[in-house]
């Protein structure tokens, strides 16, 4: 009995060790592969478009009056809104205005006299003590003096307006771009003194090739990002460059992240085109480039399935990043893909997955 138990124990242990050994042998026969997961990607294709910062309309500061230019800000000066940028001398204008005031008073006195005389002689008309022409003359005088007064008043208003605009202020934060008059110069009316470049009113113009826009110029659905920040599309150009076949897109240049951009500067933004209805169904994912294999003109990858068995999945490359491909396929984000050891794999083959860090 004891002998039988002993023998049985030996047999059982031998069987176990055989099974274990076989399983180890079997395991050691399995091919090892390195795996990495597929990553999520925006359901859109991303392309780079090239933009320039356009200058907004420049602010022109011109002389309203004929007056000497007393001072002007030099080129390059940064001025705040409301800051004095140029000043003209008002002496002649103010004396002119005084003369006008005197003329206006004279005209007022004359008018008053004429109205008084008319009022005095009107009752005498009934007594036929005064001629109609004489009365008409008095009426004419009164009208003339009235109009003269009006004209003088208007003249005075104009001069007053000019006088008030002898000092020129920046309407917004700007930079003096160009100075066309010099201090001491007697300016004429309408003569340009300087040009101001508004600082916070940049316009971004971006060029998109026709091929990327599509037949229906359906570009409004696209998203635009600069340094990750969204950009809102302001306008789409209605003309296309004859040579380059580029379409212009216009964006607002407001915002802190545009502060550093200078007019004339070239930069790039990302345009994300959502994937619309497509021939092939699938997800857009980001795969490690080592996971994508090319064979017979088609791309595929090996995905790890249940029980560590691999399956071959065809993919279509949409875009290329540094070490990744953006593909459309059945691959889901998080699926484990074979990046090393994918030579001679067969569909359904069991493998031993190894992480990158192991």
């Amino acid at each position: 009995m004891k002998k039988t138990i002993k023998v049985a124990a030996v047999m059982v242990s031998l069987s176990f060790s055989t099974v274990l050994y076989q399983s180890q042998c079997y395991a050691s026969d399995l091919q090892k592969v390195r795996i990495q997961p597929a990553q999520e990607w925006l359901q859109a294709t991303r392309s780079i478009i090239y933009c320039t910062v356009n200058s907004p309309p420049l602010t022109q500061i011109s002389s309203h009056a004929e007056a000497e230019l007393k001072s002007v800000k030099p080129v390059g000066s940064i001025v705040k809104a409301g800051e004095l940028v140029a000043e003209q001398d008002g002496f002649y204008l103010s004396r002119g205005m005084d003369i006008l005031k005197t003329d206006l008073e004279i005209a007022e006195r004359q008018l008053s006299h004429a109205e008084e005389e008319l009022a005095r002689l009107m009752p005498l008309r009934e007594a036929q003590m005064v001629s109609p022409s004489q009365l008409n003359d008095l009426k004419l005088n009164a009208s003339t003096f009235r109009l003269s007064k009006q004209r003088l008043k208007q003249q005075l208003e104009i001069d007053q307006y000019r006088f008030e605009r002898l000092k020129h202020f920046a309407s917004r934060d700007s930079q003096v771009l160009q100075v066309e008059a010099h201090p001491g110069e007697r300016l004429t009316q309408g003569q340009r003194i300087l040009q101001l470049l508004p600082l916070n009113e940049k316009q971004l113009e971006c060029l998109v090739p026709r091929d990327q826009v599509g037949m229906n110029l359906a570009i409004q659905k696209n998203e635009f990002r600069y340094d990750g920040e969204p950009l809102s599309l302001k306008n789409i150009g209605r003309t296309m460059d004859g040579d380059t076949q580029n379409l212009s897109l216009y964006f607002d240049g407001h915002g802190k992240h545009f502060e550093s951009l200078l007019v004339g500067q070239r930069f790039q933004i990302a345009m994300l085109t959502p994937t619309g209805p497509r021939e092939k169904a699938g997800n857009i994912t980001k795969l490690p480039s080592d996971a994508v294999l090319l064979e017979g003109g088609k791309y595929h990858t090996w995905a790890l399935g249940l029980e560590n068995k691999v399956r071959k999945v065809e993919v279509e490359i949409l875009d290329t990043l540094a070490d990744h491909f953006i593909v459309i396929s059945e691959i889901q984000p998080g699926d484990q893909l074979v990046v090393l050891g994918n030579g001679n794999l067969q569909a359904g083959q069991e493998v031993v997955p190894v992480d990158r860090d192991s």
Partner: protein
Amino acid sequence: MNIIEKYSPVIISCGLLLICLGVFYGVKIPNTLLPNIDRPQIALATSWPGKTAMEIEQALVAPLEQELSSLGFLEEIQTTISNGFAWTLITFHSNADMEQMYIDVLSRLNQVPNWPSQVSAPRLYNFSNGAGATLASFFLYSTNQATEQELSQAFRDHVQPAFSKIPGVASVTVAGTPIEQRIDIEFDPRGLTQASLTINEVQSRLSDLVDRSGGNLTIGSREYALHFKGQIPIADIEKLPIATRGPHIIRLGDVAKVKNRMASDWNYFALEGNRSFYFYLMPTEDINVLNTIDMIKTLISDLNEGELGRLGMEVAISRDDSKSIRNSLQLVYSSLILGAFLACIILYWFLRDFRTLVLIFTSIPACIALVILGLYLGGRSINVISLAGIALSIGLMVDAAIIVIENIQRLRGQGASLLTSIRQGTKEVTGALTASTISSVIVFLPILAMQSATGQLFTDLAYTISSALIASLLFALLLLPALARHLLKDSPQVNPKGRTQSLNRILQRWTAISVIPIGRVTFRNCVLVLGLPVALLVTYLSSPSVDVLPDPKQAMISTFINFEGPMAVEVVEREVGQVIMDRIEQGKGRFEEQIVTYGTLCYPTMCHLYIYTQGDWDFEAFKKWIDKDIVSGLIGTRIHTQQGGLLRFAMPNSRVSQLDIKGAELPVLQAAGRDLLEHLRSEFPGAQILEGSALSNRGLRIEFEPNQDQLIRMGMTLPEFNRHLMALTDGIYIGNFYTGTNTLPFYFKAKEPANLEQLLNTEIMIAGQGLIPLRQLTSAQITQAPDSILRVGQEVSTSLNLTPPTGVAMKDFTEQVDRSVLAFLNKSQYGDLHTQFRGSANELKLFLQEFFQIFCVALLILALLMYFALRSLKLALAVLFAIPLSFAGGMLSLRLLNLFVMQNLDVITMIGFVILMGLVVNNAILLVNQFQSSINKGMHQFDAIKSAVSLRIRPIMLTTTTCIFGNLPLVLSPGDSAAIYRGLATVITGGMLFSALFVLGFMSAMLSLKVFAAHRINPTSVVRELTPEGGI
């Protein structure tokens, strides 16, 4: 004979002089592992860094092959093309005048049309002057992180000049770590666009940076040469103005930087963890390998302590074959000495006379000295083959002396005086000795005529053995009689047979056994009828498998790590090379004493790890350690570990055959190759079956398809656009300019883009259009292209490399593979394709054809010689019939040897049978000669046989046993290198043993036939008898 008596002191003096000369030249003669093999091959190495295999094929290889195809004596052109490199091997017919072929190839190279100016002319390697094997290989590494340029510069300045001066070194060749440099004027595309510069604008300012001369100008009484400076020193080139923008001058340094970089990426080569620069030495034709390697070691020591030490660098030998060569030669030397000692013992046992022994034994050093003198004068070397030939000849060297001395002593025993005995005794055997020597030597003539590369191995063997035999004859007929006059003067006149009673009894008994067939007809007929067929049957049944060459092992282990696809060199270094180096460094503890050195050579498709060992090491233990701890976990690799072979550099690829597949376009050939590879791997799991050429397009490339419509709108031509692309990637070649120290190629190129996206987003300035991003002008697509292409006979082919499993002979393996391949192709859709073997299998086939021819020729020559010597066709045939018996002995010995060590029927062993043929007929000749003489004296046939056997048994046994015991150390030597000649020695030893045991009995039976019972065998004597005096 009077001359010998008269001038014996002169003869002895001359003999001594020749012996001294032999010793002197023995020290001077070159030592190598194997004889130089002249292959009728010339190879061309073409390098064009940065270009794909397809581009090189189209631009360089196809026109080159076209030009070479008109060469005379051309057998085959084979080219292997990979990215950046092509290797063209031109094989000529064996009767081609290789010097003329070399000149023809050189002249053809200059006529290849449209050879690009920036591609250097191909480098030539002439294998027809024994230049196939490399001498040694080295690593140059830095202990303080020197750059690749610094290592290259140190190599140029210090290492290469020093090594080139060593006698025996033909050239110093760099491999895997190319030293070519280039100057890149590297611009940032953004910098150009910011300055609104076009690439053409900048490039045009960089062309033609050379000084020029403009004649002379006379001022006063002096003439002044006019020199126009154009060359700009490298340090100042960034100051070169290239454009103006208003008052501002834009200089080159504002938009670009000048960088000196290596023209090609280095593979990862490392010695004991140190990343290294690698080079090897090619030997001259007449090199003394051991001396040269000793000089190299001294030079290395000087360099490491001197200039290199100051730079923090060291040179180390990666592969030092001198140890193997020394060990191998010492093994043969010791076998030689031991063989001589054993032969001496046997001689004494037979002769029992010290003076006689000394006389006979003197023939050994005398003949060896003469053989070495002959080797030196013949421009040969001391190598394993020639030394083995000398060792095999130990027994043969004493043969002639034994026969002469025996005869002299016999006559002295009969009462003749010393001088008379010497004179008469020498004269009596001169004819027989000469005939037997000629018969032994003449079989080597066909061997000397062998032209195949493998057959050239035996020239030294034939040379030494035939020299030894001739020296032995000369010694026996000239020097021995002269010495005997003095040495035997005072010795008693005793027949040596009187001193060896026990031996005599044995010989008598053996004689009695040998002549049994004479009196018994049935037994005789059985012996005769069955003897030959049984011998032939035994020969056939016991023959081991046929192989090309023996596979002597070396104290070295190689592990090949093959990747599933080509990888970038930096990835290989990081993921494989450095990993295995670190693991060895950490885990070598228990093997430290056995490891001499270790290193790794990594390429884009594979890594080769090697470890040289010493002392008592176990291959299996090392293999287990490597498989478990060093290379385990390397995903995506196929690992193969084997012990190093001694002949791998002397005879590269001696166990590798190529199977070429041809007859269709590359994609079809690749598909067929892949399917066939899988099929053969499953059929022969123990063999190493690898891709010989790429079986899939593993070369990944990005194809740029220009938008032609856009280009035309931009006013840009396609070549102009491609120049832009080249500028943005590899660079536009500007020209070769002098940098102050070297002339280097200058390239104008953009900063390397980080990735494809960045490249496509690069804006380029197009005149009149402004800045246009690249992606608007071109699309990019990843495609596959072949990273290597094989062309055989100017036809694209694919190939598989086949190495049989350890212990399986090449012939068996290739036959099995051939059958399997044919069956596979017939069943598959590749029935239209055809295959052919190259390499080792082909060499074996050629050798076997050649061997069969020389065997038949040797047999025919022997037959004719026997006929003229014996003047009887019947007797000649009788002698020849003794040969198969010895062959049976040779084959049985090989079979017996196989019980202890693996010994196939390789080409060296096969030659043993040819040599054996020439040796065994000697015994039969002696017997038949004596029989003939007895018959001519009127003796009865049977009595003549008995007389011949009894008279000749002693010398036959003496010569045979000395030969056997002289060869025995070669058979029993346990050293690794003994595998080269062990089979050869076994065949000769076994064959001679069988000859000694059975030839006497067989010949007795043969000679007892009635056809040999003629009253006189000699036809001249027969005619005299039949014609009474006075005529008929």
